């Protein structure tokens, strides 16, 4: 561990982590109440990955997410109000209600529409990175994927080319140990599913504690700086864990109680970072409580707003099939 970040940054990271945690919790309860349509793939437990990777990314840098996008999108700067409206299928959702839980995005803050085909975003991120180079920009792309995506053909086709052409992209494997219900131990010979397969494509990699936001942030800084300096892609493999199931009906019967206790209670990224903040004496418990209450209020307001917001007009279903000039 190198230098502890200044108080403003440390608190900023905590705020976003806490916001993601509370957003996901509220979504969970809205589903239990039966008032939210669709399905959910929650990122609870993976907040350090989203925030550590994206905290220092510029607004005009782009981010590509997966079917589990909420943490990434909030960390990249989409408001919880626009996210919540999208979850309810409302007109004011970040995608006008046409995207839904697995396709949230707002390109004005650099959040590409999230991609619900496993591995589907990998070559697209390469294309964005190539475009940045062709346009002589110094922007970079951060592309998240899961452990399961490392077994897709798109992973191998993309890494080969990204390494070959030195594209300005950071590929971030959020290895939460399970591809939906199946342990990665059943699907891959490597311990580090992405990082161990990086060298063959000429791409440097790091394995990082994905539940330690500061460790993630430092690795992110190295990888982003490499990409921005024209030194090519990096693969980061963040070891993490989702607190809930793959999707809303998954009770996680395939995980042991001991494993869940270890990851969820002992290694909770939000609680642990809170402890670190207090230990480092950058902040008092009452200061943190005030911050947390403010965030809880913001989420509650977003939920109320989204519940009451209007649905899109039926005619909008037929718009934007093809590009329409504004």
């Amino acid at each position, binding site marked *: 561990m190198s230098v502890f970040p200044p108080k403003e940054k440390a608190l900023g990271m905590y705020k976003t982590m806490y916001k993601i945690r509370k957003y996901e919790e509220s979504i969970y309860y809205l589903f239990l109440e039966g008032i939210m349509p669709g399905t959910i793939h929650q990122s609870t437990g993976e907040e350090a990955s989203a925030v550590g990777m994206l905290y220092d990314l510029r607004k005009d840098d*782009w981010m590509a997410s997966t079917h589990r996008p909420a943490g990434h999108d909030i960390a990249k700067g989409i408001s919880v109000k626009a996210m919540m409206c999208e979850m309810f299928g409302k007109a004011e959702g970040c*995608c*006008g*209600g*046409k*995207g839904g839980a697995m*396709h949230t*995005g*707002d*390109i*004005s803050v650099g959040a*590409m*529409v999230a*991609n619900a*085909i496993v591995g*589907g975003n*990998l*070559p*697209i*991120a*390469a*294309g*964005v*990175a*190539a*475009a*940045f*180079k*062709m*346009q*002589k920009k110094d922007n970079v792309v951060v592309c998240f994927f899961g452990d399961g995506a490392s077994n897709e*053909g*798109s992973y191998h*086709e*993309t890494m*080969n*080319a990204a390494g*070959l*052409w*030195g*594209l300005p992209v950071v590929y971030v494997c959020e290895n939460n140990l399970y591809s939906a219900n199946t342990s990665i131990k059943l699907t891959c010979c490597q311990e580090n599913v992405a990082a161990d397969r990086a060298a063959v494509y000429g791409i440097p990699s790091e394995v990082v504690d994905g539940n330690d936001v500061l460790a993630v942030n430092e690795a992110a800084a190295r990888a982003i700086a490499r990409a921005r300096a024209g030194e090519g892609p990096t693969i980061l493999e963040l070891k993490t864990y989702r607190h809930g199931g793959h999707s809303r009906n998954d009770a996680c019967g395939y995980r042991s109680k001991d494993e869940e206790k270890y990851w969820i209670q002992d290694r909770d990224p939000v609680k642990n970072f809170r402890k670190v903040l207090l230990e480092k004496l950058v902040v008092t418990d009452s200061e943190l409580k005030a911050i947390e209450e403010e965030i809880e209020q913001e989420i509650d307001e977003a939920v109320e707003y989204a519940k009451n917001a209007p649905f899109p007009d039926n005619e*909008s279903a037929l*718009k*934007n*099939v*093809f*590009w*329409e000039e*504004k």
Partner: protein
Amino acid sequence: MAVMSVADAYRSAIAEEMRADPAVYCLGEDEDIPGGMGGAFTVTKGLGDEFGANVRVPTKHGFETKGLDIANDRVINTPISEILLAGMCVGSAMAGMRPVADLQYGDFLFCMMDQLVNQAAKMCYMSNGQVKIPMVMRAPCGATNRGAQHAQSLESYFIHVPGLKVICPSTAFDAKGMMKQAIRDNNPVLVFEHKLLYGGKRKEAGQLSALGEVPEMDYTIEFGKAAVRREGRDITIVANMLMWYKAMQAAEELEKEGISCEIIDPRSLVPFDYDTVTASVEKTGKLMIVHEDHYTGGWGAQLASYMAEHAIQLLDAPVVRIAAPDCPIPFSPVLENYVIPSKERIADAARRLAKL
């Protein structure tokens, strides 16, 4: 006016658009390798000389490799990675570029199906119009004695996908004007190019001369406007690519027998010019559809059902569809000739239809 082959017309369109707009670039396997073919059918040959490519060039003592300078080279020789190829198009298009990709053989479209159908076609829609995907995917098609995996006519798979435009130019004039339109379009455009119509330096058994006059000036051809290739009064024949050339040959014979055929080349399948077909059927009362694609679910099935739904009162006889039967395309030239609609088959069907 210059006389050009279809292959040269495509190349000329791509080169002119690359000169006019720095956002346009080319990519594909073998796109332009010195000593190579320029794609599989010579269309992109030589573009690297003007626009820069990653190449391996012969030197006195062997070869020298010049890796891709992605910031400056505009002709990208890619690995054989169709998912990557299509994904590069989607991503770079989303970020402001206008990629023109070459697939070598349309049959490889299936290797990139996710990127075309789940990604390219849906990004504008799912984002509620936040992003556009101006990309061109060039897919050589048609049966040419290469066996079942290098022979298919694939247009109909893609007309079913909302968000994709599908065109099938077949003359030098259309090739240039429609390619320019495709590159300037703000949506994913699949361009089906029939291998027997290229007229390139690579000779193909059974190829037709599609040499044609192409204006020197800049021009584009709007999608969704069919071309009436021949005017007639008895039967309307709607046929695309190689098939309208065969229908023209059949029509010459039929004319001598007193059967007058009107031949319409739709040129673009999405959007489709139903109005021109309807106007023609209003005159002839009879409709025949000819395509090289299989019978079941081909674009002809869509046209026939559209006419049944909207214009059945204009029809004096059942719609006739001439298509490849529902079997993979066989290799043996004898068998291939048997399954691909021929001039004779079109003429025979027209004679029967004329009597109804």
